[in-house]
């Protein structure tokens, strides 16, 4: 507790708590904003386009895309919270400045912001799972493990977002992040089509991008269709999440302490 470098879990939680207190006031518009898009995709593609498409890997098209859309909901919520949300607290609202005058350190603040983004992501992902039965989709028992996966994915994307926030000079900076990272990940991570159908070199690239293994695993956990090597994929995501969080904390310190 007396060391400047030590991280106190309670301090991290206080940052989360502060954001949760604010979120609670605006929960309805916030949820609509986070869920509108993936739900619309589920309806438009799953029902609409799905009529024209045969099964993929033994799943109807609706079954095929639903778990991936849940993963993408996590990505969008977590990444947007840790960019637009965190950057507002960093810049215009001076919230970070206020927090750093207290015993809370930059590292605790960074982890708090990442954890908060991850929780928002998890919530969005869970709601997508919960509505699946309303679309006639019934998950397997493996789905119990899915929240943990979505949470780790949330950490990863919130940390990536916070890295952008630490580097941003204005809101327009996030256009790079959204247009060059988030949107391509959404389209090419195997949510809408099986990566296996693509040429091998393309597959290799796509397997490397951070959303693809999450989509893959989400589908396995949803339908209990576990394939060999899944623990390696989980391990990869956990490692990426930890590395991104660590980098976010370092960059935020560089940004805030002169």
């Amino acid at each position: 507790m007396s060391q400047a470098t030590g991280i106190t879990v309670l301090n991290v939680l206080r940052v989360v708590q502060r954001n949760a207190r604010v979120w609670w006031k605006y929960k309805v518009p916030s949820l609509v904003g986070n869920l509108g898009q993936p739900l619309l995709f589920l309806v438009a593609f799953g029902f609409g386009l799905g009529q024209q498409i045969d099964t993929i890997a033994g799943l109807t098209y609706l079954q095929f895309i639903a778990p991936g859309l849940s993963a993408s909901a996590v990505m969008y919520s977590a990444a947007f919270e840790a960019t637009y949300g965190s950057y507002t607290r960093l810049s215009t609202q001076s919230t970070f400045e206020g927090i750093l005058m207290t015993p809370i350190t930059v590292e605790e603040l960074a982890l708090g912001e990442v954890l908060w983004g991850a929780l928002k992501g998890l919530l969005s992902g869970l709601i997508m799972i919960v509505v699946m039965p309303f679309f006639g989709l019934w998950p397997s028992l493996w789905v119990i493990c899915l929240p943990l996966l979505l949470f780790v994915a949330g950490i990863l994307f919130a940390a990536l977002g916070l890295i952008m926030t630490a580097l941003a000079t204005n809101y327009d900076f996030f256009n790079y992040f959204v247009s060059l990272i988030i949107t391509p990940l959404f389209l090419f991570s195997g949510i809408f089509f099986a990566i296996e159908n693509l040429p091998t070199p393309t597959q290799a690239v796509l397997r490397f991008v951070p959303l693809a293994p999450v989509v893959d695993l989400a589908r396995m956990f949803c339908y209990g269709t576990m394939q060999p090597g899944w623990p390696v994929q989980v391990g990869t995501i956990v490692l990426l999440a930890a590395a991104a969080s660590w980098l976010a904390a370092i960059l935020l310190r560089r940004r805030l302490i002169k």
Partner: protein
Amino acid sequence: MNSTNTQYSLIVEARGLAKAFGVRQALKGIDFDIRQGECFGFLGPNGAGKTTTIQIILGLVEKSAGELLVFGQRVPDHLKSIKVQVGVVPQHDNLDTDLTVFENLLTYASYYQLPRHEAAVRATELLKFFALDNRRRDYIRQLSGGQRRRLLLARAMMHRPQLLILDEPTVGLDPQARHLIWQRLKSLREQGVTMMLTSHYMDEVARLSDRILVMDQGQVVAQGEPKQMVSDLVGLDVFEVVCTDDECLLLEVVAADCHARTERTPDGLYIYTSKDCAELDRAIRPCSQWLRRPANLEDLFIQLTGRTLHES
């Protein structure tokens, strides 16, 4: 001064404290002590290094050189345990605009791990003390400048800090609002809270501070007790005279005979006296406009930091 530590404990000790932002030397090695229970005033023009000093104490800026002890603990190694005992009123309002007045206090208290019930009691008490108890449900944007400052003060006091750092606590406020804040600060001082105050309002510093330090361009130019410093460095009385060139020249000669210091301004003369002098009184009388007043901190400040604007 060899028995200082037995007389009072030191809350802040700075030795050779320096900070460079790139090539700009914001602090060029300053020394000062803040004693328990006193109000220590930092004076200096904009860019003198006052805020940088505060930010180093808070760990928001890393020192380039020197030693800094707060509560006897080294900065930045022990920042966490130091900051538990420090309250800050920043120069720029950073109240949480997403939260109400009361929620601001509760949330801030949570950063110090104050139990929620205790925080609620404390917040109610402080809102009353700072005359804000009818605004507890309001959002920050609904508050006036004076109310925001008072809320910043209340926020800084939530965890009962031993050291209160006030960076320009009344900047931009109207006289009523300033007086209310001064009253409250005096009462906090009587309760034994040690204060570090920066300001460029001389009346504010003169009112509140036991000892002051004058900074200019990153250096300490003087420190001591304000009254003593004014009489030592400025004198007893100041004449502000509007005079023609000839009148001014004559006055300068008379002043020199009276061992008074003079300073020319575009339209006249300032004369700083250290004792009464009948010849000077007589020589001034024919001038079209003149004023005699006690020397004050502003004279000291101008004397030490110059009359021209030199922002860095």
